[in-house]
């Protein structure tokens, strides 16, 4: 163990104690696509003790332009199965939980509550609202990443009672606002940059060094390498469900008017 993580041991901010924290952490990555692949690779390399991988999709040829855990022989396979097979070879010390299904208001609380940190790598806006609500009710930090063509967003929600997604975007967007990657395209390296930034936030949260991107939204544009960071605070008025039961009884797809997002 010591040799595998020797470069972490050498860092004053991580060291043996920090590495033990990483080894004891349970992280759930929701979505094993463009963002999920780099997040999973780096968290596995870093030696996160338990990693849950949730995705109900199968690998397709169009995924390979950016979803770097998969290769041509994986086409048609369940993403979680292909991903975990590779990740397990990368680091046999990690325990993986395969969750081959779409996260919904029915199963979210039960799945999420088993982990210390959640990473939002989904591509559907109603799941982003669902995860934000679940993590707020369960008091679990949520590392958010999202992409559009050449631009990305990263933030951390519910960290030490910090603000969440609804404090940033209180109202679900119109369909015109959030076109799907399938329709508008996405630069292949973009989820790599954004996903690695999410993995970076996860490690800071687990080990406890540096400054977590809580209450801040980092925007990055690959066209001109410009960064833009805006701050946001907890809003007093929130339409969010306040209990586990209320979450279970909420139809997030209807709430976000996001039926369009399910048609892929």
């Amino acid at each position: 163990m010591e040799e595998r993580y020797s470069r972490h041991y050498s860092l004053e901010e991580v060291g043996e104690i920090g590495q033990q924290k990483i080894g004891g952490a349970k992280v759930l990555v929701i979505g094993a696509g463009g963002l999920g692949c780099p997040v999973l690779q780096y968290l596995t390399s870093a030696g996160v003790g338990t990693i849950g991988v949730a995705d109900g999709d199968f690998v397709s040829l169009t995924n390979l332009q950016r979803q770097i855990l998969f290769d041509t022989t994986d086409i048609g396979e369940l993403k979680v199965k292909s991903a975990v097979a590779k990740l397990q070879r990368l680091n046999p010390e990690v325990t993986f939980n395969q969750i081959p299904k779409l996260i919904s208001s029915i199963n979210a609380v039960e799945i999420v509550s088993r982990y210390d940190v959640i990473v939002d790598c989904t591509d559907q806006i109603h799941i982003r609202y669902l995860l934000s609500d679940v993590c707020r009710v369960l008091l679990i930090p949520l590392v958010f990443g999202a992409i559009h063509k050449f631009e990305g967003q990263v933030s951390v929600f519910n960290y030490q009672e910090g603000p969440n997604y609804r404090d940033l975007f209180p109202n679900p967007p119109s369909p015109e606002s959030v076109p799907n990657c399938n329709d508008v395209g996405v630069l292949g390296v973009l989820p790599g940059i954004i996903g690695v930034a999410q993995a970076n936030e996860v490690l800071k949260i687990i080990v406890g060094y540096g400054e977590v991107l809580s209450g801040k939204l980092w925007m990055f544009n690959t066209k001109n390498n410009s960064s833009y960071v805006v701050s946001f605070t907890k809003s007093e008025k929130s339409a969010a469900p306040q209990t586990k039961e209320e979450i279970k009884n909420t139809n997030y797809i209807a709430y976000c008017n996001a039926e369009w997002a399910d048609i892929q």
Partner: protein
Amino acid sequence: MNIKVQFFGMVAELVGMESLQIEAFNGSLLREVETHLLQEYPSLGSLTYSMSLNKQIVSGDASLGDYNEIALLPPFSGG
């Protein structure tokens, strides 16, 4: 006075630029600047976005001061 407005994602695409300079009065409400932008770029009306003033997310009730940088930030859904 001159203020800078930054656009991101779909907002930048619909407006056709990533930033512009507009004239506004000290003490104007952010909402008034937004109304002006909607008149210039009616297609913005179909989009959902949050607004920041000097890199802080605020409501339309915020009023402009001596220095103003406004941004229109839409959510991204891709992953």
